[in-house]
């Protein structure tokens, strides 16, 4: 026991703890400001000003919202299952936060004499992990919707569950083609493979498109926001929630959006690679730390673009209907993903057999 404790790399543990704290903090912060950004983006798209009273340009708006939600009364409806009612939002938040563990946020930093990797866990099944965790997110919706004991919530929960489950399939299939090319499930590896600027989106445009659409569905964003369609189901599964439990649901949505943007940026858009710059030679010339910082910034810029894209779409397109959504998922996206897979496999085979084209 003693030897185990001693032999443990305490530096690594502390390093990881700090990293976890930072990343959770950052994702929460980002999610918070995503709400602000969403309101501002919506406002600008819609020829309005958006929130601008709380602080300069309204930048304290998310803080005000958060504090208000904290200070609101908690209502647990009479006929609901109390335990599940509380579990729902917790689960939603938890799964949203967990995904960030395998995303490589940048290269390495040299500090305290250590080479610190900016990734919490470089597991070699990173993508599988993400899929595993994300598919748990649906429980947040389902449990919340069911526990509310409200027909609208229940309908929303059913819609949400079936939608997420169906789109996960297409999402997975669209990635398989990519994985055939990468040959690895590790996020870190995938980024490394793209370091020379040849992003996988160039090889897998269709795969990316399918993934993008599925990401929208997974995050419950318009045009796939059926489970909270306010004009039909009146906010759906979180209709009965008040105060911070509601806050958790809303937050989870934004964290999800952030994380899926991160995943998309990582596997299709080169992750933290700085475009048009040869990262390794830049690192040699200017020092690894500067490189790492620039990489992180670059990564966040990519994420930011995706997040903006999410919002932009949200405020442009109408929503699907339930059956059309299913049709799109099962009859269009999945066949397309399989086709993509086949074509990719075929081309890879040809290449392995030294065909040049």
């Amino acid at each position, binding site marked *: 026991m003693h030897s185990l404790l001693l032999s443990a790399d305490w530096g690594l543990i502390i390093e990881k703890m700090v990293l976890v704290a930072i990343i959770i903090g950052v994702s929460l912060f980002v999610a918070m400001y995503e709400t602000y950004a969403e309101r501002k983006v919506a406002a*600008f*798209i*819609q*020829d*309005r*000003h958006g929130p601008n009273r709380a602080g300069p340009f309204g930048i304290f708006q998310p803080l005000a919202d958060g504090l208000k939600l904290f200070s609101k009364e908690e209502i647990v409806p009479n006929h609901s299952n109390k335990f599940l009612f509380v579990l729902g939002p917790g689960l939603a938040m938890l799964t949203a936060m967990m995904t960030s563990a395998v995303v490589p946020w940048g290269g390495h930093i040299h500090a305290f004499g250590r080479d610190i990797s900016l990734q919490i866990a470089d597991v070699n099944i990173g993508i599988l992990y993400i899929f595993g965790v994300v598919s748990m997110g649906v429980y947040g919706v389902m449990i919340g919707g069911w526990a509310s004991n409200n027909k609208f919530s229940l309908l929303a929960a059913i819609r949400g569950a079936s939608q997420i489950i169906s789109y996960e399939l297409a999402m997975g299939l669209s990635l398989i083609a990519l994985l055939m090319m990468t040959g690895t499930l590790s996020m870190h590896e995938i980024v490394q493979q793209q370091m020379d600027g040849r992003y996988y989106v160039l090889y897998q445009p269709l795969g990316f498109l399918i993934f993008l659409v599925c990401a929208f569905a997974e995050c419950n964003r318009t045009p796939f926001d059926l489970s909270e369609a306010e004009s039909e189901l009146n906010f759906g599964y979180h209709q009965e929630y008040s105060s911070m439990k509601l806050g958790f649901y809303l937050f989870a949505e934004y964290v999800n959006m952030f994380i899926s943007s991160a995943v998309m940026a990582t596997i299709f858009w080169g992750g933290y690679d700085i475009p048009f710059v040869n990262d390794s030679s830049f690192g040699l010339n200017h020092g690894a730390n500067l490189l790492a910082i620039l990489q992180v910034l670059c990564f966040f810029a990519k994420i930011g673009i995706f997040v903006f894209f999410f919002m*932009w*779409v949200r*405020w*442009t*397109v109408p929503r699907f209907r339930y059956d059309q959504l299913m049709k799109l998922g099962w009859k269009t996206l999945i066949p397309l993903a399989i086709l993509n897979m086949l074509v990719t496999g075929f081309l890879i085979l040809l290449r392995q057999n030294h065909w040049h084209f």
Partner: protein
Amino acid sequence: MQALTSRAKVVGRKPMTFLEKLYIPVIAKAMGITFGHIFKKKPTVSYPEQRRTFSPVFRGVQVLNRDEEGRERCTACGLCAVACPAEAITMEAAERLPGEEDLYKEEKYAARYEINMLRCIFCGLCEEACPKDAVYLSETLVPSNFNRESFVYGKKELLIPHPLKEPEAYARARGERGS
């Protein structure tokens, strides 16, 4: 169903073309439109700081008029109260006493003139009904308030400032158009 007139024109309800079936082109176009709006000038009026100028015939809170010498014009004939569809106007008439000629224009005047602003629908019929050039609507909005009592506007609130005794307030009330 046969046509009833010769003016019918069937709206274009074309089936979807292949490109439209692909979702993306049209959505991309729509997204272009929305993106363009980000850079458009915003029409927003930041209300408490900026205010829109209302039209000269705007129907805001009523005022009771005075003549040039500052005498009240209302003679409490009650036409405005009759014309009010919301029954928001109440008045009480009184005879002018000797020595009050500089207060009231005619022999009869409204000792009490109240408009319940919560009932009022700002239809402007009172202004139209007044035969004595006494009640007008203004370009001011009734401010919201916390209790019902404060919405019963009496003569104190309604009378315009005395043009001779309170020239500043009078000038403020007149306001200059375009300023």
